[in-house]
């Protein structure tokens, strides 16, 4: 009896191993086919300055063997182990730490971002802080704000907008041109840029919002390009490719951030440092970002926000309840565009130079992937995704020590897109609906229950 069981187990193991070998062989063949043109061949310049084809069989063989071996280990050991763990694990109630985590996460996060510059200054000193506050803090917050703005359009109203950067550009150029030509201040132009952007949002929205789904996405993409091309070609106004330089920088209630006698440092009796301006900008964008988040969360609890979400769920039902779907879509478009306009005018004020280069499709794609990665409709998810995506890019720039490992020609930023792609694929496997895949109901009678995102629709325009 015992011997029989032993035999059976050996038999099972043999079947498992055979299956794993088959998987490994298949993976090896696919890898070979895929990498043959990529790794197997290489073009090199020979001594006569001719381009010739060289082969790299050992490298190719190594790649195929690694892939096949990896697949074998996965099929033979890892996969059964995961399956057995899943089978053993009983259904657990939500642990207490998650409750506390949820309760304290937001206050902690807000406290952290407010204290962030101080923490940075204390850890890396005044000279090092510039990079961390400017490249990390401000950059992430701009994208976080854009993500929150687009979240209204894509996440709440379910309208796939691939041309969001157009409104960012409108905001930036509104600030740049009005500040330069009319000398208006940042605080006057900030709301004005938002209004102009939302005006353009409505203007573009009218013809576009008749379309649904894929068609809407394509047309918004086209509108994003149209705005960029207008900026490039209307040189009399925008100076085309050369961009606009010398955009007035924001002042601290009239006190400029410079080394003059009437500059910020001198007025407050401090030693001049470029960090003051950066700190000021950091808190401005932080306030703008928090405003965006606060307003969005507020809107979700108002009828207009519920109508957006209802629109995402079922447009026909909305119409049967007396909701004007065109107007509701336009408000979502205008609201998203307004926040992009705020962010755009801030961007122009911070850089003091803008050109059409800054408003290419890749920006729209980045913001959209922040929204999708974060979990459509989730404010916290968008914030986390912005930190991961933009912070990740910046960290890659900081990894100079990798050059000592991989040689001086190694540039980590070159691998940015590869890593993004990988991260995206992993997220789509692990969390197909984004990092935060629950929906928080806007109102409740007795108990607030989170809604699994499986029930929530993605919207089709």
């Amino acid at each position: 009896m015992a011997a029989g069981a032993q035999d059976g187990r050996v038999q099972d193991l043999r079947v498992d191993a055979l299956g794993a070998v088959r998987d490994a062989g298949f993976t090896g063949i696919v890898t070979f086919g895929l990498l043959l043109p990529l790794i197997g061949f290489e073009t090199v310049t020979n001594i006569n300055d001719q381009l010739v084809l060289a082969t790299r069989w050992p490298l190719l063989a190594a790649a195929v063997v690694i892939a096949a071996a990896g697949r074998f280990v996965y099929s033979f050991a890892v996969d059964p182990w995961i399956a057995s763990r899943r089978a053993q694990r009983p259904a657990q109630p939500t642990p207490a730490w998650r409750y506390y985590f949820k309760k304290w996460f937001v206050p902690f996060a807000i406290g952290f971002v407010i204290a962030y510059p101080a923490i940075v200054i204390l850890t890396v000193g005044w000279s090092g802080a510039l990079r961390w506050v400017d490249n990390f803090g401000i950059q992430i917050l701009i994208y976080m704000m854009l993500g929150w703005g687009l979240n209204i359009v894509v996440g709440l109203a379910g309208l796939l907008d691939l041309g969001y950067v157009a409104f960012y550009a409108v905001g930036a150029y509104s600030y740049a041109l009005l500040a330069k030509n009319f000398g208006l201040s940042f605080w006057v132009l900030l709301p004005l840029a938002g209004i102009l952007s939302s005006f353009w949002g409505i203007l573009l929205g009218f013809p576009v919002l008749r379309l649904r789904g894929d068609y809407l996405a394509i047309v918004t993409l086209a509108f994003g390009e149209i705005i960029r091309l207008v900026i490039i070609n209307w040189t009399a106004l925008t100076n085309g490719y050369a961009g606009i330089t010398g955009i007035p920088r924001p002042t601290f209630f009239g006190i400029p951030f410079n080394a003059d006698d009437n500059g910020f440092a001198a007025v407050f009796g401090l030693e001049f440092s470029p960090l003051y301006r950066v700190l000021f900008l950091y808190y401005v964008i932080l306030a703008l970002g928090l405003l965006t988040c606060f307003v969005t969360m507020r809107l979700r609890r108002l009828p207009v926000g519920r109508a957006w979400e209802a629109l995402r769920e079922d447009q026909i039902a909305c119409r049967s309840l007396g909701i004007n779907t065109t107007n509701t879509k336009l408000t979502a478009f205008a609201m998203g565009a307004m926040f992009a306009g705020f962010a755009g005018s801030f961007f122009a004020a911070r850089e003091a130079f803008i050109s059409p280069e800054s408003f290419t499709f890749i920006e729209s794609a980045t913001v959209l992937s922040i929204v999708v990665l974060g979990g459509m409709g989730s404010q916290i998810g968008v914030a986390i995704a912005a930190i991961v995506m933009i912070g990740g890019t910046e960290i890659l720039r900081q990894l100079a020590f990798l050059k000592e490992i991989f040689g001086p020609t190694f540039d980590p930023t070159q691998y940015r897109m590869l890593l993004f792609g990988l991260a995206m694929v992993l997220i789509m496997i692990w969390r197909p609906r984004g990092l935060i895949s629950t929906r928080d109901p806007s109102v409740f009678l007795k108990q607030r229950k989170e809604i699994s995102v499986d029930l929530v629709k993605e919207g089709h325009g």
Partner: protein
Amino acid sequence: MAPDASPVLRVEHLTMRFGGLVAVDDLSFDVRRGAITALIGPNGAGKTTVFNCITGFYRPTEGRLALHRGDAAVWNALADLTDSGKRGVVRPDGALFLLERMPDYLVARQARVARTFQNIRLFSGMTVLENLLVAQHNRLMLASGYTFLGVLGFPSYAAAERAALDKARFWLDRFALTERADDPAGELPYGAQRRLEVARAMCTEPVLLCLDEPAAGLNPRESAELNELLLRIRDEHNVSILLIEHDMSVVMNISDHIVVLDYGVKIADGAPEAVRNDDKVIAAYLGVADEDVAQAEASVGL
């Protein structure tokens, strides 16, 4: 038969063509006030097309759909209204609307015609309560000062929202959905989803409630409960009901009046007993014996 002589909806010469297909052909009938009118007919008879015309989802090829509320005297304005090219008249003593001139959301908002759908259309990722609040969108939107006052947190909006929640609670209670109020609508069992859709329509405070197969997929007990509910809606809330239904236990038990369609043409119109015994209706539903085909065809005008 009906408690009030003046109809709530008068359908006159309604014709709907899709290219060469005539889905509804010169249909005229009245929906009586405070009564339950059933629209029945075999599959493909054009019942849902009639619904879509009434609720503004389709624009009829021809015909007049006049909806009335308030004093019966308002009906006298019909001829003037038709000539004027306007969508409707609202007077202190009542209102009259020409539904064929209105887009779908205005039919719901101004004429106050609510509807449900044959394949349930709920906001499945939103809670039951949220579904009922979305139904009260227009009133809340006004109270929130088109969002501006709401964002700033004006107290008038808070009061309006409380009133909306009270109304939602009332209908949740009436439809036995209070227990599930905070659950997503998509998680409800089928019967509860059907009830929720009717509750959501009732939250718009309709004058006319159009139900497209409300009993489809319900078991006999659930459909008996639904009958109960519809009768209460008719009696206690003075809402006229127009329903499409295949379930004859529902149709025959609660309808005050039945209109039978076949191939887009009205073949019978009357009280349940009369319709039940109508030869054309029996022929349309059950067919006729071979020897009677010629006679039956002649009688329906073929």
